[in-house]
């Protein structure tokens, strides 16, 4: 009888101890979320939230505090380190950037010939060929410098593009070009043509071709490239 009682007591005492490690591991996992507050001096908290949105894990949360221009982020400690590093790059004084704008007039002409691409567009010749225009003429090129939040202006022939350098997004390594308004001088009046907001990845060239429709014989291309 005593043996049975002793065995039973040992089992009852040691059994839960065996499970203790597993329970502790689960509890540690549940407690592994940490909270950090990030306050911003140079950038808006809501823009910072958008910048880190892709980095926050499924169990993490972001809370925007507009009054203090800060973010409260809950996430795993390892992920919080990455987010902190990204926000460290994000919340910096307005950075200078350069935007190169090249304007190209493209058309489809009756002659059965391949397009002769001007020398200044050789770097994008293969891409321009995809658009199947066989008449390509360079209108001009301009290099604009500015800081985040600052204005930019390009005037090439009869065209004028004015815009704002937006915020740099370290998550996508891109800069927003906001309120990009393209106008054309008709007589002595500027006629607005389009208005857009772009995300330009640094070092990447974007060919933006605008035309009335797919059957249109003419297009205006803007070859844009942003860099620090």
């Amino acid at each position: 009888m005593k043996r049975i009682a002793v065995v039973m007591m040992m089992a009852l005492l040691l059994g839960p101890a065996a499970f203790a490690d597993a329970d502790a591991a689960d509890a540690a996992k549940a407690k592994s979320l940490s909270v950090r507050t990030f306050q911003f001096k140079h950038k808006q908290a809501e823009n910072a939230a958008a910048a880190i949105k892709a980095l926050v894990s499924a169990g993490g949360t972001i809370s925007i505090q507009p009054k203090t221009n800060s973010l409260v982020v809950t996430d795993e400690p390892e992920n919080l380190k990455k987010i902190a590093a990204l926000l460290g790059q994000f919340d910096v004084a307005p950075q200078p950037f350069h935007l190169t704008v090249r304007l190209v007039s493209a058309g489809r002409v009756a002659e059965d010939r391949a397009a002769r691409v001007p020398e200044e567009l050789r770097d994008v010749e293969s891409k321009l060929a995809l658009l199947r225009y066989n008449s390509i003429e360079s209108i001009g090129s301009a290099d604009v410098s500015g800081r985040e939040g600052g204005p930019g202006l390009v005037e090439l022939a009869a065209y004028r593009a004015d815009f704002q350098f937006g915020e740099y997004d370290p998550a996508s390594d891109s800069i927003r070009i906001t309120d990009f308004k393209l106008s054309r001088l008709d007589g002595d009046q500027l006629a607005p043509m389009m208005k857009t907001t772009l995300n330009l990845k640094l070092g990447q060239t974007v060919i933006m071709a605008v035309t009335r429709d797919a059957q249109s014989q003419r297009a205006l291309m803007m070859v844009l490239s942003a860099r620090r």
Partner: protein
Amino acid sequence: MMSCDSFRTRFHTGTDDAALLEHLRSCDRCLDFAAHADPDVMFRALGSSTFGSEMIPPGGIDAFVDGVMQQVRVRDAETAVASSQAASWPRRLAMAAAISVAVFGATLIYRFDTPQDSSPVPRVAVAVPNRTLTTKPIVETYDSQNATIVEVPTDGTGGDDVKIVMIFDENLPADL
């Protein structure tokens, strides 16, 4: 058999009426009633009409003895059942102990069979890029209701260095 009303009408102290005494043997309420008036009536009802003589239970001594022995056997059986139930707790303990030991043993087997971090598993260093860039649409907004924006997928030539975006907008002039 005599009714209780009839018994109480006919009963009187010191009665030896066989019918009345027979009723008392089977009716506790009337026995209580009669005993208040005549405490000796209970003894007379047991079968002896006179004090000092041998009392003979109703149905005879053999029937009385059989009844007593039957009660004894019933009590013995009840005691045996009760004792067997009382004696089952060691079995319960043994079962609980066996289950506990089985669970504990299974836990130990699981823990020792599962590869632990301390086991000499070769680790391979994997190069992880410092940062994975997210992708944003090139055209975030475009102020026209009649525009179609197409981001031309790259075919691999030139990689991602050059992107093409086509904007079809009916509001644009035809003589671009």
